[in-house]
């Protein structure tokens, strides 16, 4: 059964239509990659799902509820977490305070996240609880944005380009963390440009180009279609 199912999602910035009938599904406990180049519409898809674009239309079902007209904070409270690109942590706040902003009540059937459990998942963060976010490295900031969203005890998470601009070694840590979250039962939709990183973590993939979904299938099906890869994914 799908945790998140999207149909006919359109989105606009001013007069420009950025998304054109985007449709996708995220199953429970699944990791699905949304692949595409810069500007293809990945971030806009995520921002539209959580209600952060000025204008959108379409059907977005999440945990059996229609969220297409809900406000951003209501969507978050239902349990759809969003980790934006560019590591948007609160730089003036300490690690602990960043986590506090994300804290929401526990959800039935899930072990609630606490700062301690998160420090175990991301050991670096545990060593710098009182440090302001602005004085952390890019990799640490990326971990913190994910940890902060987990504090809301989401049942599904949208991860926007988690590997962007990070050193390969950190990217490997990131992949390991995502796989562990999947084992915890979290459903994850991750946007990526890096096909190789996507291979390490995902069960299925969609390819988006110019605001439209051009391919959807398992990773194996994608591997079998080099033509699609060459047409839509930047090398």
């Amino acid at each position: 059964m799908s945790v998140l199912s999207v149909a006919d999602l359109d989105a606009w910035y001013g007069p420009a239509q950025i998304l054109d009938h985007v449709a996708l599904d995220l199953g429970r406990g699944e990791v699905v990659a949304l692949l595409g180049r810069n500007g293809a519409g990945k971030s806009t898809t995520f921002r539209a799902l959580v209600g952060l674009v000025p204008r959108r239309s379409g059907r977005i079902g999440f945990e059996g509820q229609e969220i297409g007209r809900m406000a951003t904070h209501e969507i978050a409270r239902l349990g759809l977490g969003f980790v934006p690109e560019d590591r948007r942590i609160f730089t003036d706040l300490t690690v602990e305070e960043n986590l506090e902003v994300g804290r929401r009540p526990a959800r039935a059937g899930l072990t609630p996240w606490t700062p301690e459990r998160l420090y175990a998942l991301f050991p670096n963060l545990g060593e710098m609880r009182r440090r302001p976010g602005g004085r952390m490295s890019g990799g640490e900031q990326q971990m913190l944005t994910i940890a902060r969203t987990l504090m809301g005890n989401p049942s599904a998470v949208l991860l926007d380009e988690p590997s962007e601009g990070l050193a390969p070694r950190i990217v490997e840590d990131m992949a390991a963390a995502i796989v562990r979250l999947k084992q915890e039962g979290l459903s994850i939709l991750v946007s990526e440009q890096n096909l190789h990183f996507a291979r390490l973590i995902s069960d299925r993939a969609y390819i988006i180009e110019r605001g439209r979904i051009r391919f959807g299938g398992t990773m194996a099906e994608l591997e079998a279609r080099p033509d699609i890869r060459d047409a839509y994914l930047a090398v």
Partner: protein
Amino acid sequence: MAFLIVQALTGLASAASLFLIASGLSIIFGVTRIVNFAHGAFTMIGAYLAYSLTERLGGAFGFWFGLFAAAVAVAAIGAATEILLLRRIYKAPELFQLLATFGVTLMVQDLVILAWGPEDLLGRRAPGFTGAVMILGQRVPAYDLFLVAAGPVVLGALWLLFNRTRWGILVRAATQDRDMVAALGVDQKWLFTSVFALGVFLAGLGGALQIPREAVSHSMDLRVIVEVFVVVVIGGLGSVPGAFLAAVIVSEINAFGILIFPKISIVVVFLVMAVVLVVRPFGLFGRPEAARRTTPGATIRPWQPLGRAGRIAVAVLVSALAAAPAFAGPYLLSVGAEILLFVVFAASLQFLMSVGGLASFGHAAYFGLGSYGAALAVKWLGAPMEAAILAGPVLAGLGGILFGWFCVRLSGVYFAMLTLAFAQIAWSIAFQWVAVTGGDNGILGVWPTAWASKPAAFYWLSLMVATVSVAALRILAFSPFGYRLRAVRDSTLRAEAIGIDRLSTQWIAFAVAGAVAGLAGALYAFLKGNVFPDALAIPTSVDGLVMVLLGGLETVSGAAIGAVAFKALSIWLMSQTDYSKLVLGAIIVVLVVFLPKGLGGLADLVRPSGTGRNDASGSSPSEAAR
């Protein structure tokens, strides 16, 4: 020595209220990015309510409870204002927010007079703090000492609130990244409302605490808001400790300035502010504004010079106006001349705002300098009208060069606040330098030369000046210089990369706009036969802004139409009602919320799609580029 210490204590006592009010403004700005012009009005309501409550309740408990209840009531009024008005304009350019909250201020001024009457009210003294304490042989009022202690206590309480409570952490997070806070499940709407209520509570408390020290008056709102602007600009918008430090600095300058420069004490404060802004453009504790929002005037429909048909239409219109003396009487002609001079004033402000992207909140300074330039030339040099009319724009242009040098170093709300502060400097000089300017009594007997003394002749003179000025500003807008000015407004980065210097380009525009406003002011002095400090005051500046807004910010010279509509309306209102401020304030608020594109925007409203409104309040180009 003892005297100096006592004077310093008096300064600290004054700083307490100022800090409360300023920290409220800062907190509101930090989260909502709105500079709340109505903050002074909320302070005033706090003082009036505290007066009534303490009178009604009586006794020690009644007094202290009255102060607190007044502040709570102000917070409730503030929350209602936020819900009904501000929620609609959070995404609008800052100019609209300043104007809307100014509209609220105007309304409050009349409402306060309706409720409490025009007389100053003297509050009772604080029970338990009625006497004086001897310090080093000098008497210091006990209530002053109470206030000296109250300042740091509130600072500490605010620190705890923002660092030790979940609400405070959420507010600090929202100050940095509102969307992200929403994505983490926090309802921003109510966070904003609560922040606004807290800020306004502090304003109300600041006003209430003052009642044992000074009389409550219906003109305190503008005095307070200007002082508070100075404090937050020095301290850094959004910073509570900055507000504290700056409140102390400003109050001490006032306390000692009055001893050293009794005549120009206000000017000293503004000079300190100007120096701080040049050295640290974002104040002592402030930080650079990360994201710039939509600049006024920026439009995606490129402007076109008037075509043949347009020129013929203008020629016909001007000829028709020139024929007015054939059927209009002297009163109507003098009203007509006044409106035409405000067309010139509004056109000069539009040049600065729409072409230059610089929203000045103190354009009256140059209008007033023009008036005073002309009047002083007549009074002290015995100059004839022809020469005196030139003295106006010269003095205003020089003022524009001097003040503009500072102002163009800033942008956005800081620019607006600095222009306002400079206008207040000009106003206080005119007000305080009695020997030269006549102070409050103004300069009388500024009459035109014989040939222009007939209403028809002066009307024609005004019509000619208006036509030539608007045409000249249009020509300048379409000249290479005008394009460079727009280039800087559209993209400073690109403009600098093709060799255009932002500072000098905007500085020239500032001086030109000042000189043209001065021309209007000079003629205005001759029209009225006198000049008063009012010419330089905040309401005159805001009139100009409303004219530009009404005419359409995204037009080259729509302000001319806006000036005619607004000036005619306000002259008519003055004759119809005693509460013209209430009506004008309401008009400004309605205009900002429902007609942000001015009269030209009416066309968008009647169109079925209604996209006009979305463009004004919707996403900025930078968001769209994401």
